[in-house]
């Protein structure tokens, strides 16, 4: 197992390097790091910036210099705010991690539950209901759902129950001047997590249902039932464990992509995460931030793919290749 994991990690390193080089060249060729200085009344400002960033050097020299600083934790300075990009990224990443953690926890719990139930009670009324809702969830644009959710769970709920204040909040992750993980935090978390989860639950539940149906029709399941193994044990210990294997792969890839893909949720709910950081940097041509963002997201995608491979090996011993 250890050899398998080490082998996967070693293969990932050149993938990360190649991805970072491609992204670096892409960003440098697309955006001009000195663009923001064009209207500054200091004629030497652009020259200083060119010298500081080494923009006159060939791109591979620029990449080497940037990579050397990057691995030592110096991710440069934001052209827009002059802030350390490392600090900016850490702050944004933590906010996004919170949304992803709770979103995945809720999504996985609900999706697996629905998938198992739908497979076990195939063609029942609830199965048809879950199928319809899943397709609706997949088709629903997140921004639309988010705004509707605010309208229903903030305004309408307050009216219907005659409440003094809304039961849920939707600006940020805390009330003004608040911090910590308390009921206030929870009340801020519900709506963005709901928005983030709706499409994921729709998609994962479909996947889980299909995987469960495939497994439940296998011979070993029939044998287990014939041997008198309790139904619950057959479903969860024998069926679900095998049905989770393909879902784990899908989950790992989706989670990796989420680190850069929460733009809409973060914008609607004013959460300063990776998605918002990316959009602002893109619109302002903030090169250092874009480079750091792309590499961080690429690392997460590759890491979670690696995690999927490892989990695959854990869940299915047949896959652990010596």
């Amino acid at each position: 197992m250890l050899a398998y994991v080490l082998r996967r990690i070693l293969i990932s390193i050149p993938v990360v390097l190649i991805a970072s080089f491609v992204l670096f060249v892409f960003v440098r060729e697309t955006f001009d790091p000195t663009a923001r200085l064009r209207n500054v009344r200091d004629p030497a400002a652009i020259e200083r910036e060119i010298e500081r960033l080494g923009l006159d050097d060939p791109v591979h020299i620029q990449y080497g210099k940037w990579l050397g600083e990057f691995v030592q934790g110096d991710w440069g300075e934001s052209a827009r705010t002059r802030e350390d990009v490392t600090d900016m990224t850490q702050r944004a990443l933590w906010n996004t991690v919170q949304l992803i953690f709770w979103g995945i926890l809720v999504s996985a719990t609900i999706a697996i539950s629905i998938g198992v139930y739908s497979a076990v009670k195939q063609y029942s009324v609830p199965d048809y209901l879950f199928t319809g809702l899943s397709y609706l969830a997949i088709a629903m644009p997140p921004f639309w759902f988010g705004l509707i959710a605010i309208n229903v769970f903030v305004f309408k709920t307050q009216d219907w129950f005659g409440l003094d204040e809304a039961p849920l909040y939707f600006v940020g992750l805390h009330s003004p001047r608040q911090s910590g993980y308390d009921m206030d935090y929870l009340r801020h978390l519900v709506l963005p997590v709901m928005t983030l989860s709706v499409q994921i639950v729709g998609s994962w539940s479909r996947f889980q249902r299909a995987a469960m149906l495939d497994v439940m029709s296998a011979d070993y399941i029939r044998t287990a039932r014939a041997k008198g193994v309790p139904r619950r044990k057959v479903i969860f210990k024998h069926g679900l464990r095998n049905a989770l294997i393909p879902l784990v792969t899908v989950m790992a890839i989706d989670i990796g992509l989420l680190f850069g893909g929460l733009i809409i949720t973060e914008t609607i709910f004013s959460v300063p995460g990776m998605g918002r950081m990316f959009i602002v940097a893109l619109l302002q041509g903030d090169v250092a931030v874009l480079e750091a963002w792309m590499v961080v997201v690429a690392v997460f995608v590759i890491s979670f793919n690696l995690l999927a491979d490892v989990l695959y090996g854990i869940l299915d011993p047949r896959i652990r290749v010596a």
Partner: protein
Amino acid sequence: MTKSRWLRVLALLLGLSMIAAACGDDEGAGEEETTETTEAADGSGEEVAAGGDLVIGAEQEPDCVDWISSCAGSSWGYWMMGVTTMPRAFDVVETADGWDYEPSILLEGEPELSEDPQTVTYQISEDAVWSDGEPITSTDFKYTWEQITTGEDIYDTTGYVNIESVDDSDPKVAVVTFSENYAGWKGLFGGGFGIYPSHILEGQDRNAMMANGFDFSGGPWMIENWDKGVEVVLVPNENYWGEVPKLDSVTFRFVTDTAAQFQAFQAGEVEMIYPQPQLDVIEAIDQGLEGNSSFTPDTGNLEALWMNNAEFPFDSVAVRQAFGHSIDRDAVVEALFGGIDITEASQSINPPILTQFADQEAFADYTLDLARVDELMTGDGWTKNGDGIWEKGGQAANIEFITTAGNARRELTQQIVQEQAREAGFNITINNQEAGTFFGETLPNGDYQLGLYAQVATTLDPITPNLFLSSNIPSEENSFAGINWQRVNIPELDPLLQTLQNSLDDAERREAGVAADAILAENAVSFPLDPLPNILLWSDNISGDVADNPVHGPFMNMHTWGLAS
């Protein structure tokens, strides 16, 4: 009890707990109970309760708050943290004759102005102190001037580079001597920059100490905390020598999405918003909102149709004049802002508040008149081709119309103008760009024919010298920093604009300004369009003198506000 019943009970309990949480007090998130009240500063007799925490929705987060640096320049940053913490020489206030400068609480009355050379003597209030108790002195004036004129990456040195020296021998008297007359001197040592504390910043890296927030103040408020991406919290400056704020704190929460902003306001998560005049904002207001609102076209904003006077077909005065008669500018404004009863186009190339040295009706003659279009174009040698488009020398009047991409209001403007112009014989194609490219490359390089964007006045001085002096056409001489992007070069105009910029005689300036406006209109250099209104929305819970200021923003007298008793 069966399993399914347990699940239903659990779901019910979860729902009830959420409701109970909503009904109960949220410690620390609500307003404090107060019993003390004072009369509103505006003398309205309205009681203004002391205490409480106000939450305001901020549409933008500033990049940095070192005001003189190139990373500053965000209007929201200035409104939130500049006006409220930085001392300034003059305030812009509303008078019976319009907006004018008035010495601020920093000064002991109007500064003394003398000529030959221009010298301004500021008498600083004996009571004026920084938040640490140290006096605000003439050395602070001197330090500010030195930083602006000698620092790196300074946002704008206009006016300060005309200063030869600042005498700080008397700590409470700043004597500013100019090497070259500068008529807009009242906008210096204030405006978007303020005055910097020399005793704190001298010898230090000013930008490093200020860019991400600072812990000093010469205004009624202090920055307590700036949680990047989340909020800025201001608390009263207890050492302020003027009226100390009544509120315990003001939190500006960054809500950048317009729809989310409105929802946050309606839900009470924020109690005031100051949204941009976009179409969805106008629509939401038109449909009715709880609370109070104010919207006015009397602002420092002007959105205009800017023509490149050096580029075909607008290199001809007749064509520019004809274009002006092919657009019904009132109809455009009505389509954009009719929902808030603003229906008349601006008639001056100066923003509405700049009445003192401008002719606010200079462009009034440019109304929709297709017969006049025909007369002007045929007189200039144009004929219509088979498509009904004007043509001269084998070249058709094809015009590329550019504005910032993703701005719904501007895109609607383009569509209306395109349709009207087509009817008059001008073929317009729309090709929008990202703002950085548009303002950073296209306009300075002159790679455009017709542009749509706004000018914003941050002082009460006319913008026409900056915009139309021929020496401000971007060139090597001015390091391509000039903003005469329309390439206006009218010989009889320059002397008038020079007078407007440099004369210390207000009567002479007014005469020159009005004459300059007449020449600009006659030559149809560009066309004023809509006076982008300022829109302020606030809840009934806010009491006190809530009013927008077109230069200083809506939070200028926030220290007089309270939460309704």
